């Protein structure tokens, strides 16, 4: 066994060439996932609420976006943005930005469905009470409906975040310096320790995702207690 290969390159797996060179490794994966979920939250919130609208002109674009993206493999979206960018903007987008865009667009569609389900799961009486007391639709949404449904959505958000963390490995295909690509580089350079290297990669992804899911489970329990209080 050649665990020394892993040992010698562990910092490269964890944060790439940073701080002397660009950020890479697991740190880059996490940064991509964090920025991705942040962007996806806002896009998803907008698209989810738009899809709930009674106005067809507002609802339709959101529906098309959500359904198209949900019927598309993420890898294809990544290719799309990477190879489409030069045509759209006249110059190539850096690989990381291009991948991040795909992550946001992709995850946004799933977040939109979470938002929609979360809003629909509230009793109708909440909206009626809010509107009945004179609040506008927007006020009712922002002070009554969303504070409640967003809280209920937290576990689903965390799940989406876990998925995205794993999916950042797909950015490897267009050459983004994240954990998967850095590991492959080391493997190609050394090629006597593939098992050790990819076991390490698996363990690193697992640690991050496991930490997130246990956090989510704790949160869920907490929220369930909150909901039980509110029955």
């Amino acid at each position, binding site marked *: 066994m050649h665990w020394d290969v892993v040992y010698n390159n562990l910092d490269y797996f964890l944060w790439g060439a940073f701080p002397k060179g660009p950020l890479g490794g697991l740190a880059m994966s996490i940064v991509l996932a964090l920025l991705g979920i942040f962007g996806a939250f806002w896009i998803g919130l907008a698209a989810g609420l738009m899809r709930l609208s009674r106005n067809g002109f507002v609802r339709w674009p959101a529906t098309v976006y959500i359904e198209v993206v949900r019927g598309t493999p993420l890898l294809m979206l990544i290719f799309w943005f990477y190879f489409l960018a030069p045509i759209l903007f006249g110059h190539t987008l850096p690989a990381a930005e291009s991948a991040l865009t795909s992550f946001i667009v992709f995850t946004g569609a799933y977040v939109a469905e979470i938002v929609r389900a979360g809003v629909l799961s509230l*009793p109708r*009486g*909440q909206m*009626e*009470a*809010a*509107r*009945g*007391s*004179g*609040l*506008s639709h927007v*006020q009712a949404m922002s*002070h*009554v409906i969303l*504070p*409640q449904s967003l*809280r209920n959505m937290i576990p689903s958000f965390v799940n989406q975040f876990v998925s995205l963390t794993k999916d950042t490995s797909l950015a490897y295909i267009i050459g983004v310096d994240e954990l998967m690509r850095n590991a492959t580089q080391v493997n190609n350079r050394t090629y006597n320790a593939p098992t050790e290297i990819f076991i390490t990669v698996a363990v690193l992804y697992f640690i991050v995702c496991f930490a997130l899911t246990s956090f989510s489970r704790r949160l869920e329990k907490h929220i369930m207690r909150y909901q039980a*209080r*509110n*029955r």
Partner: protein
Amino acid sequence: MAMIEIRSLNKWFGDFQVLKNVNQSVEKGEVLVICGPSGSGKSTFIRCINRLEDFQQGAIQLEGKDIKSPEMNVNTLRTEIGIVFQQFNLYPHLTVLKNVTLAPIKVKKVRREEAETTALQLLDRVGIHDQALKYPAELSGGQQQRVAIARALAMRPKVMLFDEPTSALDPEMINEVLNVMKDLARDGMTMLCVTHEMGFAREVADRIIFMDGGEILEEAPPSEFFKNPRHERTRAFLKEIL
């Protein structure tokens, strides 16, 4: 001029006609009780008055102004007509105090301190003295419904609508809510109450109407309504619930 004037109100859900030529005039300070079997259109009727339901034909006026006229903003209309629901519908994520102050602050732009002072007075009035900082789930059903009444009153409405406010309550809590409503009636609030609490109706109603199949079949002051109901379906209904 009547506080609320309803003329030839007709409403359909698809092909199904829920309200059939409903006419009513409610004077300022009057208490109108609406009863009738399940599905007769009582909720739909009162929800048309604050436009929680739309209607296809007829007109409703609040103090002579058509509620559907372009210069009548729907949110303003709703600040003048409070509504209390069967299921309370308090906001579970907000404290009792915030439940009551939300609409005054957001809609009427009342200053927070002022809204809270008013809210505490109203909570006092409905007998929830020291629960202002609790969450709805920490209160009993009767207390929650009284908070809901305070929340509606906080907008200083001219009219209050009640849709079976005691139907979801345990029997021992019904009276605490009815007492608050009687108090309001005595204070001169204009009220439209869908309820089957006939003791309440007898005591405070100025008029009782009986609805069936979307129509008003009978309309009379309580004494007459209970003593000699004219319509046979009213008699059958009264026999069942009394």
